């Protein structure tokens, strides 16, 4: 459970990045935070594990106020995977990389061993156990970074731009993976520009602009609102674009799911055969 109340934040260079943001993310929710560059998305999620502290307002992670404790304490419950895996990989082997956080959190050696094996298996990295992370491909490095956070099994997982540099197949694996985590009761927050990825996964969508939340709701409503998206420099998902163009035929506009789209088209065809 993440609660933010009227959060204000400015960087030392006086740039006001957050201007009163409030949100409640319940346990087990899957939230996508979207918005153009500089909207304050990353700044906002960095408050969830205390990397940044609000200048005004309150952020609570599982009831603990972030200003009253250390990042290390908060990180135990709120895992944060950074956008660029190269900003965290430093160990000689993938195995050591994954055990780094576990050692920091003071797990027993035996537990560390188990958790590392579990995380390697989870992200199909077992074959690279003794490989240097620097020798892996971009997508694999990203998976190592993810594994190194998942290993300590945090209740909440924040992923900053998880789809960047991933091919379609890896994105699909990631999507399934997030849904699987969610089904286990984990809270997942992603920061992303990838509108198709969001449309396919259908999470709660939070749209930010210039340090404020401008929309918060289901993807079906937000990702099919052209005015709202244009304001945030986001293009409609392709299916929504198609249905916007088809609306003169009397079809609904707010469709982002491919299966729903298929049903609607088939039904329309029965009613009035397309030429």
């Amino acid at each position, binding site marked *: 459970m993440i609660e933010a109340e009227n959060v204000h934040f400015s960087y030392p260079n006086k740039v006001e990045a957050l201007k009163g943001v409030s949100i409640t993310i319940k346990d087990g929710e899957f939230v996508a935070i979207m918005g153009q560059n500089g909207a304050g998305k990353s700044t906002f999620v*960095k408050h969830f*594990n205390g*990397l940044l502290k609000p200048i005004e307002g309150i952020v609570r992670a599982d009831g603990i106020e972030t200003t009253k404790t*250390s*990042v*290390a304490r908060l*990180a*135990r419950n709120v*895992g*944060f995977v*950074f956008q*660029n895996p*190269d*900003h*965290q*990989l*430093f160990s000689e082997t993938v195995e050591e990389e994954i055990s*780094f*956080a576990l050692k*920091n*959190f003071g797990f027993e050696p035996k537990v560390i061993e188990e958790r590392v094996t579990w995380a390697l298996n989870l992200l199909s990295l077992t074959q690279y156990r003794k490989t240097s992370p*620097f020798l892996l491909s971009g997508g694999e490095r990203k998976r190592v970074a993810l594994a*190194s*956070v998942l290993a*300590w099994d945090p209740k909440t997982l924040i992923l900053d731009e998880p789809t960047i540099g991933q091919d379609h197949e890896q994105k699909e694996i990631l999507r399934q993976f997030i849904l699987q985590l969610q089904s286990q009761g984990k809270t997942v927050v992603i920061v992303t520009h990838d509108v198709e990825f969001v449309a396919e996964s259908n999470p709660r969508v939070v749209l930010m602009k210039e340090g404020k939340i401008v929309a918060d709701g289901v993807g079906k409503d937000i990702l099919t609102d052209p005015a709202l998206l244009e304001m945030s420099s986001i293009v409609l998902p392709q299916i929504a674009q198609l249905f916007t163009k088809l609306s003169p035929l009397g079809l609904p506009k707010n469709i982002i799911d491919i299966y729903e789209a298929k049903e609607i088209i088939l039904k329309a065809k029965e009613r009035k055969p397309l030429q």
Partner: protein
Amino acid sequence: MSVFDGLRFRKVYSPIHNLDPRIKFVYVISIFVVAILFSQIIPLMLLFLLQIPFVLLAKVSRQWLRSLRGASFLAALIFVINIATTFFTSGYRITPLNIEYAASLTLRFVVLVESFSVFFLTTSPDHLGLALEESRVPYEFAFAFTTAVRFVPVLAEEAQTIMDAQKARGLELEKGGLLKRIRNYVPVLIPLIVSAIRRSLELAEAMESRAWGATKKRTNLYALKLHRGDYALLAISVGIIAIAVYTHFFVSIPTITSLL
């Protein structure tokens, strides 16, 4: 980071920003030499005050104050060490003269910091590279130098991101004894170095794909030319040195203690 902030160039239009970087450097060096020449407090105070019109003209007073604030810790350290050494070596007592001497050594450091701060605050990396080139430094070295200067803020930002990423994995930089604390920085330094190397390789490829070094004889879009203001600053610099050398050899400078 505040010390570095006080050295980082900001684009402002002012008469000082437009001055030729070579002449500005001559000016900084003459201030430097004069500051080293004197250990009495009165000339050092004059030297300190002399910079203030430059700072005001250059419209960088806020950043300049920040650099002074950043230097204040070291300045305090210099003062305390000087007082302490005289205290222990001259029979456990401190005279006003001792304090004045410590103060002037501290002021000397502050003068050095402030003059370099003004120079870097008002000289763009481009101008600096151009100045090096026109001073017959081989272009490769001038380019390497300006690139290095340009990448300092980028690396600083990257270091911050890496620290955040490792903190998010439970790393506590401030934990443990001195040795442990140094070792805490390994997870920050390795990604930083790796990414700097990777970045430099990418930069090299990007440069080569744009035909860097294709011709031996390069021309510049902007050529450095001395203007009236530059000659004036050169004259001021020479004047400062001349007066300082004269004063140093022929005038006995009173101490404030003796004046009181």
